[in-house]
């Protein structure tokens, strides 16, 4: 459950334990690598289908991709009532990307770290136990917070764009008690509301995935009886993983629609 970490020290690029005192400037190369590979896979897949998309009878692959696109589009249209070229692609990216990253959870928990350990041992002469590999990027707080922060920036942007600075300030200070004496109280309340949104987004996804990964690891430690338990837990996650991706997408849409609607 430790990330493969990379940092630059005075002696050049270092990994893992050597980075323990590098402070902020450490990079989780496994999180970055897996998430970027999955993101590029998503974009490549959808782009290649989109380029060949016919308006006539779609092939099976196109039908599947269009199913996802239409599902996202329906959700966006039913929730977000403004016109925006960004919301729907954003929601699609979040949904598919997070789903793909979540699905890494179903890869047997030891497999990828073991492969990475063998490669590390064979290729770089490292002790396999020193090679870390966390294959589920959504169990990394950095990633979930990055997503949530991106959404947060968009919330601020849409609030300012739709309501103006005055409107946004008024929303922060004149609700829920519409009286000048309550401005500080309102401001504290509204700021908490505003900040709780990205925070809850990030922590929800992280918490769910981290916990499920942790339980996979726990199950993996109990010996021969782990197989049925693994199976059950994995079946359960067929439900949980898309659900978490969907929740992340849906809440993003809801927050952005709240941000761009006048009260």
């Amino acid at each position, binding site marked *: 459950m430790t*990330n493969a*970490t990379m940092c630059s020290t005075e002696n050049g690029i270092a990994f893992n334990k050597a980075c323990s005192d590098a*402070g*902020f*400037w*450490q*990079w*989780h190369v496994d*999180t*970055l690598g897996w*998430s*970027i590979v999955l*993101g590029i896979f*998503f*974009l490549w897949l*959808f*782009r290649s*289908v*989109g*380029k060949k*998309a*016919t*308006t*006539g009878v*779609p092939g099976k692959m*196109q039908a599947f*991709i*269009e199913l996802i*696109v*239409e599902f996202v*589009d329906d959700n966006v249209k039913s929730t977000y009532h403004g016109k925006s*070229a*960004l919301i*729907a*692609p*954003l929601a*699609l*990216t979040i949904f598919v*990307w997070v789903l793909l990253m979540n699905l890494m959870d179903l890869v047997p928990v030891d497999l990828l770290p073991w492969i990475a350990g063998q490669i590390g041992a064979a290729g770089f002469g490292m002790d396999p136990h020193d090679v870390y590999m966390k294959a589920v990027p959504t169990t*990394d*707080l*950095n*990633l979930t*917070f*990055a*997503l949530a*922060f*991106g959404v947060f920036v968009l919330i601020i942007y849409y609030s300012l764009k739709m309501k103006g600075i005055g409107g946004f300030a008024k929303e922060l200070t004149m609700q829920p008690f519409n009286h000048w004496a309550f401005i500080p109280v309102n401001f504290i309340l509204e700021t908490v509301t505003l900040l709780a949104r990205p925070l809850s987004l990030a922590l929800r996804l992280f918490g769910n995935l981290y916990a499920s990964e942790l339980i996979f690891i726990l199950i993996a430690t109990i010996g021969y009886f782990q197989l049925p338990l693994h199976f059950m837990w994995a079946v359960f996650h067929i439900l949980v993983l898309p659900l978490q991706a969907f929740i992340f997408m849906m809440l993003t849409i809801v927050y952005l629609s709240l941000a761009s609607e006048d009260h």
Partner: protein
Amino acid sequence: MNFNATFIGQLIAFAVFVVFCMKYVWPPLIAAIEERQKKIADGLEASERAEKDLELAQEKATEQLKDAKAQAAEIVEQAKKRANQLVDEETQKGRDEREKIVASGYAEIEAERNRAKEELRQQVAVLAVTGAQQILQREIDAQAHNDIVEKLVAEL
């Protein structure tokens, strides 16, 4: 579980992915979907229109058929009437013809009879004269009493 520069990397990756998706992935897919939706909607509309047209055409055809039937019946009726008329006329004509022929036959018979009568009268007159001549051979000059004979003949 430390918070570090991975955050920045992920943020950049997220932004790039979203922008790429917005520019190159979303538009062709949604365009294809919307185009197809439009096509399907058009198709449905067209089929509905065609159905309506068909209904109309059927109605029209039924009406025309009804008209045609009525017309045919009328024509047959007229033809029958005409035929009856013709038969009547012909019958009438035949009857007239027959009457004419019969009448002419009567007239001919009458004329023949008259002629025969005349002839007979003349022969009777000649016979009477001959008889009278033989009776009165000696005392009566045929020449002198010719006017009496003539008178007799006229009276006959």
